[in-house]
């Protein structure tokens, strides 16, 4: 897979050298990203016979399957508590999606995504409660602002490698957490902010767990859709090349630094969106949600689900969000079991839960066909 990504990338470079001059600008890269997100499904509708297209078609079949499940789930799942858990899965899923792009495709580890999550939540809350700004516009502005902060932070930070990058993002998270606790006038200090207004669609207020279920999962599916496209775009291939080998990618003409910073900003924007939605949904936030443990948890979800596998990331988010709820019955032993299960999954499914289970399943199926022959 790595090799084919490299080959495709090389082909891209050859075909597009004429346009490369234009591609140098960062704005162009973003336009390219947006364009790519819409081109893929269009070409799917047009119908194509190449191998990659059948893979793409399969991908969209899965996607529509997921959308159907999301649409039908409220018929089965009743009660605020289960909806709450599902909604939190959507929020965590959004953050995981961004981080998975960063870890799985660009190969950069961030232990600071709770900070971007918190920036979304806090800025949305502060502006909408203290200055009565319109929530949707604020959400969008905060997203852009967070992406910008991540972009500026990414320029010096993403030059760092390995543990140093981890420390830098961790440090950023800790500093932001301390600011959340200390700047009491703005953030309400350790006890947090409450009374965050709910969102409206036109004049229609979104309230209650079911309304938010549609909103949050709607957002998740939209962003998931964009991300699935992004991964198969030129940018996605460039990122995968960086993940495989940064030097080779660079030698092939990928502007590795630029791509890394852009994907960092994109993943921060995802986290910020999730944070704003979280704040409006629960109408109460406190710094504890945005400490480094959340960052670690999000990385865990990515790793457990399957690094670089967006579907796996969703599974990881779902399993690790629901697990503490399931283990709740064990009372004091819940956290202990969580640790043991986490270790067990990582020891036995190091490639991630979803790829691991798929492999296990296909092996069994192969064994069965052999037996029946």
């Amino acid at each position: 897979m790595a090799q084919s990504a490299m080959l495709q990338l090389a082909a891209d470079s050859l075909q597009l050298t004429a346009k490369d001059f234009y591609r140098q600008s960062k704005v162009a890269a973003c336009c390219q990203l947006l364009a790519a997100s819409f081109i893929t499904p269009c070409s799917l509708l047009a119908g194509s016979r190449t191998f990659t297209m059948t893979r793409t078609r399969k991908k969209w079949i899965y996607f529509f399957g997921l959308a159907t499940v999301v649409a039908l789930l409220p018929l089965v799942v009743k009660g605020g508590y289960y909806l709450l858990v599902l909604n939190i899965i959507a929020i965590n899923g959004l953050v995981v999606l961004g981080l998975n792009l960063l870890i799985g495709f660009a190969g950069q580890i961030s232990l600071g995504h709770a900070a971007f999550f918190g920036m979304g939540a806090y800025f949305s809350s502060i502006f909408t409660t203290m200055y009565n700004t319109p929530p949707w516009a604020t959400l969008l502005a905060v997203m852009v602002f967070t992406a910008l902060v991540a972009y500026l932070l990414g320029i010096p930070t993403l030059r760092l490698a390995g543990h140093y990058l981890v420390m830098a993002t961790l440090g950023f998270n800790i500093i932001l957490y301390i600011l959340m606790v200390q700047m009491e006038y703005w953030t309400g200090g350790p006890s947090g902010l409450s009374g965050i207004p709910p969102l409206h669609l036109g004049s229609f207020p979104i309230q209650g767990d079911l309304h938010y279920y549609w909103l949050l999962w709607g957002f998740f599916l939209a962003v998931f859709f964009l991300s699935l496209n992004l991964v198969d775009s030129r940018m996605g291939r460039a990122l995968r090349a960086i993940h495989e080998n940064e030097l080779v990618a660079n030698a092939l003409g990928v502007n590795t630094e630029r791509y890394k910073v852009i994907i960092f900003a994109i993943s921060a924007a995802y986290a910020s969106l999730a944070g704003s939605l979280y704040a409006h949904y629960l109408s109460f936030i406190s710094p504890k949600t945005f400490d480094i443990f959340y960052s670690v948890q999000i990385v865990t979800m990515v790793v457990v689900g399957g690094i670089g596998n967006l579907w796996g990331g969703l599974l990881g988010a779902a399993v690790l969000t629901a697990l503490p709820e399931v283990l709740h019955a064990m009372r004091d032993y819940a956290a202990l079991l969580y640790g043991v299960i986490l270790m067990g999954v990582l020891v036995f499914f190091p490639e991630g839960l979803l790829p691991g289970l798929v492999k296990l399943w296909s092996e069994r199926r192969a064994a069965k066909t052999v037996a029946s022959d």
Partner: protein
Amino acid sequence: MIWSQLPQFFVSGLTSGSIYALIALGFGIIHNATGIVNFAQGEFVMLGAMTMISLTQVIGLPLFIAFPLAVLAVMAVGWLMEIGPIRRARSDSILILVMITVGASITIRETAMHIWGKTPRTLPPFSGDEPLVLGNAAILPQTLWILGITLLVVVLLSFFFSRTMVGKAMRAVAENRRGAALIGIGVYRMTLLSFVLSGGIGAVAGIIITPITTMSYSAGIMLALKGFAAAILGGYGSMKGAVLGGLLLGAMETFGAGFVSSAYKDAFAFLILLLVLFIRPTGLFGKEEIKRV
């Protein structure tokens, strides 16, 4: 008036710095043997202190017997962690192994909560609590113990790594894993040894700091974070860097608390750390990594 407190800042910076240095050394030893960050390093520190508390207060052993026993107990935990999840892992990906240590850290922490409860515990100082007054600074006897024992550990470690065969073998593994295996060094045994050694050093740090700060089951997280920051500041994997990084971080924290504000002391320390990284991406004493295709 703040200048007159300078010696006091210096003493407390040196004290917490020594502890950070010990934890950073633990991080460095495991990193050199395996390339991973051991998130359970802070739990080693906590376990050392808690075992010591049980040995002296429940069983009633004297200090000088309980100390080595507690260190041995945590070494055993390090040993178990390596032969268990780390060796069984069906992957050699650094990230997976690091996340396994996250799982181990949660497991150890929660087990400790069930054994020792949630209330913070403490140890009596090793030799009284009559402070020595030296000019403007008051020095607790325990501070002297901390400085002395840290110095002893550092000296012993540097002797171990530069003079003994096993220590040299560990350095060879850190330098080049495959090369070391080719000349007949048992790489897996060295990995095991690194976990045992880190467990021991962590335990020492926990035991000597507890009389000053108290210890609870969850205290390991913050200590590990500071130790990790110290190791990064000095240059990850460098022994000299770990010690100096620890002392520097301790100093930054206390001076930050004194001159900036105590509420922002951690923010201040981490801000400086970030700035250092931006200027020197591999820490103060870290080696520039040469990338190969």
